[in-house]
């Protein structure tokens, strides 16, 4: 096995990176892939609670890097899925405890044992972002249908392109189809019109995500969850499957623009 490395990042905070990482981890592992999720948000550990594994933590990423434990000792096995693992972030340290080279080294050691390594990045354009992106061969950028989040996504797209990681792909999260239909929320088509990026998924706003986070059981495990379904579809696209984009929004708002999904240029 040699894993592919996907980093989930964003410019603006709170757009759903951790939610996406947990759900993609669950979706990929449910589909039979061996997956490890790394919480790259050093000092603001979150992925453990979203995945419901907070009670099993002994060692963390910084312990591995600083040699206080073996890689295997810091791998936390998921409760539900036998092929899903987590490496938690250190809670009492800051981002300077990790360097891009450290991340590359840790990921290199994980590669032979997994199909996918998912890295949950902190928001922003600083050290934490650089650490998370350094080992990636696929970068997924999460945004919300808001002016501020899309603007920040554009910044990140520029930075990722400068790193020559291959073209990053966009996840539009927390879409409210009713508002898009009314003309009161940016549609996915609008966002693709202004950002020069390929779309990999559109995730609706879904109350089940909140409940799932309360329970530490990602929505992708719940067959009723619309967001969960969207994440499962993204997981399939990550593996090269050609999954058609369903219309969450009005026909002309989204379907009408599907032909323009891959845009070579910006506004």
């Amino acid at each position, binding site marked *: 096995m040699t894993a592919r490395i996907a980093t989930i990042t964003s410019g603006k905070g709170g757009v759903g990176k951790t939610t996406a990482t947990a759900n993609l981890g669950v979706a990929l592992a449910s589909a039979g892939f061996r997956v490890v999720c790394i919480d790259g948000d050093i000092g603001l550990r979150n992925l453990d609670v979203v995945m419901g594994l907070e009670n099993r933590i002994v060692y963390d990423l910084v312990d591995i890097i600083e040699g206080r434990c073996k890689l295997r000792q810091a791998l936390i096995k998921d409760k539900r899925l036998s092929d899903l693992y987590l490496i938690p972030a250190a809670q009492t340290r800051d981002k300077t405890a990790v360097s891009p080279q450290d991340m590359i080294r840790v990921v290199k050691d994980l590669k032979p044992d997994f199909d996918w390594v998912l890295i949950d990045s902190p928001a922003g354009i600083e050290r934490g972002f650089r650490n998370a992106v350094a080992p990636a061969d696929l970068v997924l950028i999460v945004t919300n249908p*808001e*002016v501020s989040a*899309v*603007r920040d996504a*554009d*910044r990140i797209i*520029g930075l990722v392109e400068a790193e020559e990681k291959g073209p990053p792909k966009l996840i539009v999260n927390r879409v409210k189809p009713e508002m*898009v239909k*009314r*003309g*009161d*929320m*940016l*549609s996915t088509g*609008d966002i693709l*019109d*202004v950002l*020069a990026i390929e779309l990999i998924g559109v995730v609706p706003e879904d109350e089940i995500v909140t409940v799932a986070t309360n329970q530490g059981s990602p929505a992708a495990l719940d067959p009723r969850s619309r967001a969960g379904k969207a994440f499962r579809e993204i997981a399939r696209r990550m593996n090269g499957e050609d999954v058609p984009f369903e219309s969450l929004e009005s026909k002309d708002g989204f379907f009408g623009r599907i032909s323009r999904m891959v845009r*070579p*240029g*910006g*506004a």
Partner: protein
Amino acid sequence: MNFFERLRGERPSAQTAKDRLQLVLVHDRADLPPGKLEALKDDLIATLSRHIEIDVRKVNISLTQDRHQQRLVADIPLAPSRARRRGAG
């Protein structure tokens, strides 16, 4: 936006959001905020005015973007000068 707002001809807020985004991104990408563009415009007018009489109020300088190419577009109308009018007549 409700039915009555639409009747009054107000634009959908998503359209406003998209227009604002496009403008802000064009400035972000060029690393030239609107205030600096204004300063550039003033400098340009001062420089050009040393050589030619221009219609200052109608000068229009803007950033545009198509695909990956950014462009500074300047539209600089000349002042209707007495000399030129005399020449034409």
